[in-house]
C-alpha cells in the first residue's frame, strides 16, 4: 500500500477498490463463541426460559413459528420499504426546495430543525388515533422519523460544490437550474447515500414502534403479543428476524450506492490507504 502511495502516478497502480464490507470470518467466529457462552451460562445457572432463553430455545422457537414469523416479517418489510422510499422522496424534495429557493429555504430550515426536536416516537399513538391500525400510520411515522437525515445530508451535499466551480458555471452563462441539475445534484449523491443509510435504519425503528403502538400484524406486533404470553423465545426470534431484515435492507442501500456512486470519496483507494 505504501509503495502505491509513494509512486503516486505509476501506471501499474492497482485500481481495485478495497471493499468496505465487514470481514465476515472473524466476526462470525466471535459470534459463535458468544452464543456458546450464552448457552452455557443459561444452562449452568438454570435461568428460567421466560427471563433469558438459551440460544437453542430461541432457535427452536424460530423453527416452530417460522410460518408465523414469515408472515409477520413480510408485513414489516413492506412497511419499512414503502416508508423508506417515501422518506427518501420527501427528504430529497425538501432538500431541493431549500437549496433552490434560498429565501424560502431560510424560513423553512429552522422549522424543520425545530420539528426534529419533537420526540417523534411519541407521535405514534396520535397517528394510530387518526389513521387506525392499517399501514398508513406506520408509514407516516417512518417518514416523520427518517426524512430528516436524508434532508440534512442531501442539503450538505448540494452545498458542498466549491464556490469557484459555481463561478465557472455562472461565467459561461449557466443558470441556477442548470447548475443544480448538472453539478449540485450529482455532487450530493455520496452525501445522500450517507443519509439514506441512516434513514433505512430509522425506517425499521419506525415500523416496529408503529406496530407497538397499535397493530394486528408485523414483527413488532409479534413481539408485543409474545411478551404478554411470556413467550420470551419467540420475542427473541422476532428480534432476530428484525435484525436480519434491517441488515439486509442496509446492504441493499450500500449495494445501490456502490453501483450508482462509484466515484464516492470513500472508495478512493488513495484516501483510504493512510
Amino acid at each position, binding site marked *: 500500500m505504501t509503495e502505491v502511495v509513494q509512486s503516486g502516478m505509476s501506471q501499474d*497502480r492497482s*485500481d481495485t477498490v478495497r471493499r468496505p464490507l465487514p470481514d465476515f470470518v472473524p466476526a462470525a467466529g466471535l459470534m459463535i463463541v458468544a452464543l456458546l457462552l450464552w448457552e452455557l451460562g443459561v444452562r449452568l445457572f438454570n435461568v428460567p426460559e421466560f427471563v433469558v432463553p438459551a440460544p437453542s430455545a430461541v432457535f427452536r422457537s424460530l423453527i416452530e413459528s417460522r410460518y408465523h414469523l414469515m408472515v409477520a416479517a413480510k408485513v414489516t418489510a413492506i412497511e419499512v420499504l414503502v416508508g423508506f422510499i417515501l422518506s427518501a422522496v420527501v427528504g430529497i424534495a425538501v432538500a431541493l426546495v431549500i437549496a433552490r429557493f434560498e429565501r424560502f429555504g431560510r424560513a423553512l430550515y429552522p422549522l424543520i430543525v425545530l420539528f426534529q426536536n419533537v420526540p417523534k416516537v411519541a407521535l405514534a399513538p396520535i397517528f394510530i388515533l387518526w389513521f387506525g391500525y392499517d399501514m398508513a400510520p406506520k408509514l407516516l411515522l417512518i417518514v416523520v422519523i427518517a426524512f430528516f437525515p436524508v434532508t440534512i445530508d442531501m442539503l450538505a451535499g448540494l452545498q458542498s460544490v466549491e464556490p469557484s*466551480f459555481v463561478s465557472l458555471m*455562472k*461565467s*459561461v*452563462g449557466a443558470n441556477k437550474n442548470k447548475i443544480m441539475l*448538472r453539478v449540485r445534484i450529482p455532487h450530493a449523491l455520496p452525501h445522500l447515500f450517507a443519509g439514506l443509510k441512516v434513514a433505512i435504519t430509522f425506517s425499521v425503528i419506525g415500523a416496529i414502534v408503529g406496530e407497538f403502538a397499535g397493530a394486528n400484524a408485523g414483527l413488532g406486533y409479534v413481539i408485543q403479543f409474545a411478551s404478554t404470553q411470556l413467550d420470551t423465545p419467540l420475542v427473541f426470534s422476532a428480534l432476530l428476524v428484525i435484525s436480519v431484515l434491517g441488515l439486509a435492507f442496509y446492504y441493499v442501500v450500500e449495494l445501490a450506492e456502490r453501483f450508482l*456512486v462509484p466515484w464516492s470519496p470513500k472508495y478512493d483507494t488513495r484516501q483510504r490507504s493512510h
Partner: protein
Amino acid sequence: MMLAETAAPAPSVVSAPDTAEAQIIGRHIAVDFTHAGRRQRVLQSVNISIPRGSFVSLIGPSGCGKSTLLKVLAGLVPPSEGSITVDGIAPEEAAKKRVIGLVFQEATLLPWKNALENAAFLLMTADESIAKSEAFGRAEAMLKLVGLRDAENKMPSQLSGGMRQRVAIARALALDPQVLLMDEPFGALDAITREEMSECLLDIWERTGKTIVLVTHSIDEAVLLSDEVHVMGTGPARIIETLPITVARPRGEESYSEPAFKAAEKRLRGLLIESHRRTS
C-alpha cells in the same frame, strides 16, 4: 475596517505600452463588500489596461484584493464604481461569448467524470448545441496541449495535483477564450511541479497568443512569465506600480540568470516588502 480608514493616496498609474491595443480596460474600479452589515472598500480606484496577447501578473500581499480584481475582470463581481470592458463589452457578456476562460487555485474537477469529460464540460455547458464529438475533440486537443496525452480516461481521483490543474487549464482553453484569467493556479502545488507548470503555461501562451492574467504570490513566476507585473497594495487595494519585464523572449531555464531578470526580481521584492510594511 483598517482599510477603509486609511486615506488612499493618488494611484500612480503607469500606462500600458502603446504599441498594442488594450483588450481589457478598467477605469477607476472600486469594489465594496458588505460584511456583517459593514461596508468595506476592498478595491479603490484601480486603473488597469491589459494589451491584447500580453501576459500580465497581479502580485501583492495576501488579502489585498487580487482575487477580487480578477473576479471583476471576469464579470463575476460587479464594481461599485468605475467601468470595465473586455473587448469593448461588459465582462459578463464577454464571458458568455466565451471570450474569457477561468482557472482557480483548486482544480475543482467533477469526480464522476474522467479527464476528457471534465475538459469538455464547460464547453458543453456554454454551448448546448455543440456536437459531443466536436466538444470532445477540442477537449482532447487541449489535454494534449497541456501535456496530458495519456490521461484522458483517468478519473480525477487517479490524477496528481499538477495533472488535475492541467485538466482545469485544458477545460478553460477548450472554450477557446481570448483571455485566460488565472487565480493562483499553482498555489497548491509543490515547488518543482510549480516550475513545470509555469513552463507549460509559458509554452501554451507562446503557442496560442492568448491574453493571460495571472494572480500569483511567486515573484519568480511573475518575472519569468510576464510582460507586465501589476503590484498591488492595501489601504484599500489599488495598483501601486506597474513594472514592465524586459527579460528577452523566448524565456526558459536560462532566463533566471539574466541581469534583467535579477533586476526585476529585486525591484518586485522591494515593492512587495514596502507594501507588506504598510499593511501591518
